[in-house]
């Protein structure tokens, strides 16, 4: 199966020149990007074998002696290409703050407690149907210094490497109904409201496990379309 990578979908992404997010001011390039034809260097990508992920990497609540504090959640979904076909064997790496909104990162200065039972990093490979599943705790919102009284909506950072260099993406998953969306220049940097909504996970009662954890569904669409839709047999 060979994939092509049309550029039409790229308008879903934020512009790096997004001045409401102050860190962009000295970091966004000022020169126009140069259009790069897709060569073998771009349409190929690393393969991640099963050795990339250890058993337990996808359960962030089991890394320490005790259980982390916070609301236990299940985050699951499918990784799809632009034609809606599952993207199997895709590496997903996640990281997040703890329930109090504090990262274990050494430079996080937020005066909220660290949780000795929570690091907040996980990995998974999608299965043959493009599915992944993490168990974690719901991260807290946290303040930052972008502007007066700036708070990030609760989020989990997601890093994905699909089948090619062109399907590499890093993003953030949000939770439904967060009152901070309207005030967050990072979330609002995505120009199209429909595209923003694609970063909001969906609470799902069927994913929720009784007496144990709330469930959220989050599907991810990576670049790539079937080069020859007619000749492809139906593979689902």
């Amino acid at each position: 199966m060979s994939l092509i990578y049309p550029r039409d979908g790229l308008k879903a992404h934020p512009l790096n020149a997004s001045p409401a997010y102050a860190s962009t001011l000295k970091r966004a390039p000022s020169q126009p990007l140069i259009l790069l034809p897709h060569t073998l260097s771009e349409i190929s990508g690393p393969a991640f074998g099963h050795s990339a992920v250890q058993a337990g990497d996808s359960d962030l609540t089991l890394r320490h002696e005790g259980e982390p504090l916070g609301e236990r959640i299940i985050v699951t979904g499918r990784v799809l290409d632009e034609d809606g076909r599952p993207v199997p064997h895709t590496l997903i790496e996640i990281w997040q703050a703890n329930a109090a909104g504090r990262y274990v990162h050494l430079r996080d200065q937020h005066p909220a407690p660290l949780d000795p039972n929570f690091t907040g990093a996980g990995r998974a490979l999608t299965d043959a149907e493009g599915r992944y599943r993490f168990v974690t705790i719901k991260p807290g919102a946290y303040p930052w210094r972008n502007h007066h009284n700036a708070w990030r909506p609760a989020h989990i950072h997601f890093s994905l490497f699909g089948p090619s260099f062109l399907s590499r993406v890093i993003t953030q998953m949000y939770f439904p109904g967060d009152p901070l969306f309207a005030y967050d220049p990072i979330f609002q940097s995505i120009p199209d409201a429909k595209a923003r909504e694609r970063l909001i996970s969906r609470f799902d009662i069927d994913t929720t496990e009784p007496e144990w954890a709330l469930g959220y569904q989050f599907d991810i669409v990576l670049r790539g379309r079937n080069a020859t839709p007619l000749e492809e047999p139906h593979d689902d």
Partner: protein
Amino acid sequence: MTERRAALGLTPSQTVGPFYAYALTPRAYGGSELVNERVATDGVPGERITIRGHVLDGDGEPVPDAMIEIWQADADGRHNAGGNAGFTGFGRAETSPEGFFHFETVRPGSVQGPDGTKQAPHLAVSVFARGLLLRLVTRIYFSDDSANAADPVLALVPHERRETLIAQRGPDGVFHFDIRLQGEGETVFFDV
């Protein structure tokens, strides 16, 4: 011709933020590294090369929280070739507090380009950082390679900016490649 279904909307990018290291480059946190700056182990065939550089912002200040990834062909110009143990072609490095990064790898072979052309040896590069909402894509070419003159991608870049894509080999044999995000000497970034 068959009518294509409308494409699904892409999941938009967001910044990697300042706190990715304990997950993506977790050596200092005692985490297991999936990938790091050593792209080739000792037994991998090819000329060993080291690439060093700094990431600098629009004021020329070092960027201490960037993550650089490279993707490359092996010494024979093959991407993702099976059977090349110790080499995936994929590398990842975080910048130091001084904005410094480096990679240890093998010099890639030349790779086929558009319309039967040949591309000069190069690395595909992604730059992620706080303040970048979407990764920046650039390339690293090598100053001592005469094939650069005929490279179809370098040919797309205005002459006066081409040098920003070429790692300069120092007297110690190390290739130097700075990434200037903005302003004077700004690195060429590509729309992919």
